[in-house]
């Protein structure tokens, strides 16, 4: 009665990239680098109403060794910059970076002695999310953008 009765042939043919990218994009393990109020908004993203687990990215890891999606949420100060760099370096490839909110993306309104003017001074960023803080829908939209990006990746290019 199930799906198996509809499938006559147990084999399919596809490209390697398609299978691996399909697996990767629906099982991203996020590492929350939450330094300010955007991290509070992230709780909304994870919780039931918005529910990032619909995109397979609900398994929040607090070790960079186990994560492949770095969520930088909040103001990053100069004192913290080497820490963020170190955490990014500790993540195994392949990895993606989501910069959430005005502060992480550009320093926000903190144009002063202590705040990094956007985390792209330190690490490569895949998707920027505007807002102060962004709505949870914006974050989910950014996760979908990263999924699209994963879809275009060639596995052989990760080295």
């Amino acid at each position, binding site marked *: 009665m199930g799906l198996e009765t509809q499938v006559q042939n147990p084999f399919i043919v596809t490209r390697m990239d398609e299978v691996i990218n399909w697996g990767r994009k629906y099982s991203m393990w996020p590492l929350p680098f939450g330094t300010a109020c955007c991290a509070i908004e992230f709780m909304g993203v994870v919780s039931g109403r918005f529910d990032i687990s619909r995109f397979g990215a609900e398994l929040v890891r607090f070790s960079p060794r186990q994560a492949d999606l770095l969520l930088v949420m909040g103001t990053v100060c*100069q004192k913290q910059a080497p820490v963020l760099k170190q955490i990014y370096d500790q993540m195994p490839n392949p990895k993606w970076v989501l910069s959430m909110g005005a502060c992480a993306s550009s320093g926000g309104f903190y144009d002063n*002695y202590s705040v990094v003017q956007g985390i792209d001074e330190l690490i490569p960023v895949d998707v920027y999310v505007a807002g102060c803080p962004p709505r949870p829908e914006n974050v989910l939209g950014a996760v979908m953008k990263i999924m699209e990006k994963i879809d275009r990746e060639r596995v052989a290019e990760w080295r």
Partner: protein
Amino acid sequence: MDEASITARITARFSERLLGTYTFRGQHAVTVGAGDLRAVLTWLRDEPDLQFDWLMDLAGVDYQGYDLEDDERAWRFEVVYQLYSLKHNHRFRVKVAVHEENPEVPSVWDLWGVANWMEREVWDLYGVRFSGHPNLRRILCHDEFVGHALRKDYPINKRQKFERPSEVILCDKVEWA
């Protein structure tokens, strides 16, 4: 005791050593020199009818470029002590004059232990040294930070980059009095 009466008590006791007394919207304050600071604060803490047993806050101020017409300060910095008495439910403010050539003030961490970190913050951001402090290291900025960020002559958006994480010392390793 209301603040005017406290001012009167201090003036009676330390009249010749006060640099000034101020009133602003019912709040009173006295200014003292660095040499008299510990005598005044110890007296405020220990006098039975004053008993300022809580140092609520300790902050630095940089008056460079301050352009109030009646401002006659001969010094650039001040350190401000906000005192409160849990016993008597009254407050008072003491300021100490700090000159730019020798920005040094005696530490009061042995009078109020809470002053330890507050004095480190003022040192970090204003460069006022607290003599006798057991552990005068930076507390907010990176330990390789050069200069003092909240001084008025520090460029407002001069950012310093650091290659390694700031040293973390979890315990001050201080022998408490």
